[in-house]
């Protein structure tokens, strides 16, 4: 009996050779903005990311503690099966629109700018695109070509929550891309994102967004970084459109012992929509209190310093040319880190 137990233990430990990862991400900020007219010190959001890979299976969970309300939200949580060049996913994940959205997720210290570009901002931070989705996903890769498709409950701005869809309309998004080496990607994103809800804050909203995007990204470690993305959103019920995009350029100017890599960057962003577009107007109304959604062009100049792989310091200044209201500017500092818990 003892031998049998020993044999079972050895067999199980050999066959269940899963790889696990658990890391905490966090950040601290300071900044002065012309709109607020005061210096602010901020404790950023805290993110816990963990996953397990066993043979062809993967389960991932990412929890996000949002400040200042200290709300704990599940940002990603899915199970995935990988068979050769194909993978199938069920749960909550980031949609495959463009490159930036799936490349950076919530580990803010690793990406170059302090915040995500406006067009790919998270739903509750004023982003107009459905960047998260609860549903099913499919990925295929053949040599340099890739295809990602997702089908799910739809946008989390108004149309659904983590646990239920608020209407009977489903969203379908995808991306066709070409990746010529491990550091690059160019492609086209597309999507159909309908919604019909009666929101307590916004009222009755019916929209049908058709999304078309183009992107190019090149980020080889230790070399130049180029990431450009542009999106068009055509709202079919009203016939009114909207668009947004960004161009991010950076280059490692210096690598020295105490500072590590010093990488200056510039980012140009724009967000615009036709007045009366019900999609933009309703999320603007929904977010009015927390994050004002405005038509604008934004110019950012900054530097990212990476002393070692688990920490970065960023200094940034931006100027916003607002289509309505007074133009704004800000100076900001950011210290971000990742603490490996299990590797």
């Amino acid at each position, binding site marked *: 009996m003892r031998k049998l137990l020993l044999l079972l233990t050895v067999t199980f430990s050999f066959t269940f050779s899963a790889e696990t990862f658990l890391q905490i991400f966090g950040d601290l900020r300071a900044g002065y903005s012309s709109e607020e007219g005061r210096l602010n010190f901020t404790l950023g959001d805290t993110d816990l990311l963990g996953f397990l890979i066993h043979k062809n299976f993967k389960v991932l969970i990412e929890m996000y503690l949002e400040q200042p309300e200290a709300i704990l939200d599940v940002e990603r949580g899915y199970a995935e099966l990988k068979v050769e060049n194909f993978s199938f996913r069920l749960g909550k994940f980031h949609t495959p629109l463009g490159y930036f959205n799936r490349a950076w997720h919530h580990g803010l210290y*690793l990406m170059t700018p302090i915040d995500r570009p406006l067009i790919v901002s998270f739903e509750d931070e004023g982003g107009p695109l459905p960047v998260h989705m609860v549903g099913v996903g499919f990925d295929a890769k053949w040599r340099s070509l890739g295809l990602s498709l997702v089908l799910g409950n739809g946008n989390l701005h108004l149309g659904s929550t983590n646990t239920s869809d608020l209407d009977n309309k489903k969203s379908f998004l995808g991306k066709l891309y070409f990746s010529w080496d491990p550091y690059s990607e160019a492609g086209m994103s597309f999507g159909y994102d309908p919604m019909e809800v009666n929101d307590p804050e916004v009222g009755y909203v019916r929209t049908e967004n058709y999304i078309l995007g183009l992107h190019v990204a090149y980020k080889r*470690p230790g070399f130049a970084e180029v990431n450009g993305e542009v999106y068009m959103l055509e709202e079919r019920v009203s016939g009114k459109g909207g668009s947004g995009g960004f161009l991010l350029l950076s280059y490692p100017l210096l690598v020295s012992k105490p500072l590590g890599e010093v990488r200056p960057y510039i980012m140009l962003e724009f967000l615009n929509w036709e007045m009366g577009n019900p999609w933009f107007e309703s999320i603007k109304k929904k977010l009015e209190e927390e994050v004002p959604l405005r038509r604008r062009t934004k110019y950012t100049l900054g530097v990212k310093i990476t002393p*070692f792989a688990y920490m970065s310091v960023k200094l940034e200044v931006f100027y916003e040319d607002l289509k309505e209201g007074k133009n704004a500017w800000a100076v900001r500092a950011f210290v971000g880190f990742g603490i*490996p818990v299990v590797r």
Partner: protein
Amino acid sequence: MRWVILLLFFSFVCFGEIAVVANPSFKNSSNLKDLLLGVSKRNVVIYLTDDPDFNETAIRKLIGITYEDFKIFWLEKALRGEGVPPKELPPEEVRREVRSRRNAIGIIPLRYVKDLKVLKVVR
């Protein structure tokens, strides 16, 4: 005397040589750079030594980027849930881990190689 000189020469050569090793059952269909960067079809776990100078030389010679950039590259992959970052262990332990795990790849000094499949040796 001839044997002593030969042994000395052999140990000198081995100390400067970097071996990329895998489990003897490992079937390699991808190129080495793709394997080390985790862009091949299979999930691999990379094991490196606990000597940062050795790792720096090895990664520069094998992939052409710094060891710090290599770590960041894998952390960015982990953020996407695409794989676990490289693990750092003493060379003897790397050898043992690679020997016991089918999907493991190790980068160690050549003199530690024993009962492993050698994918590449660089000087």
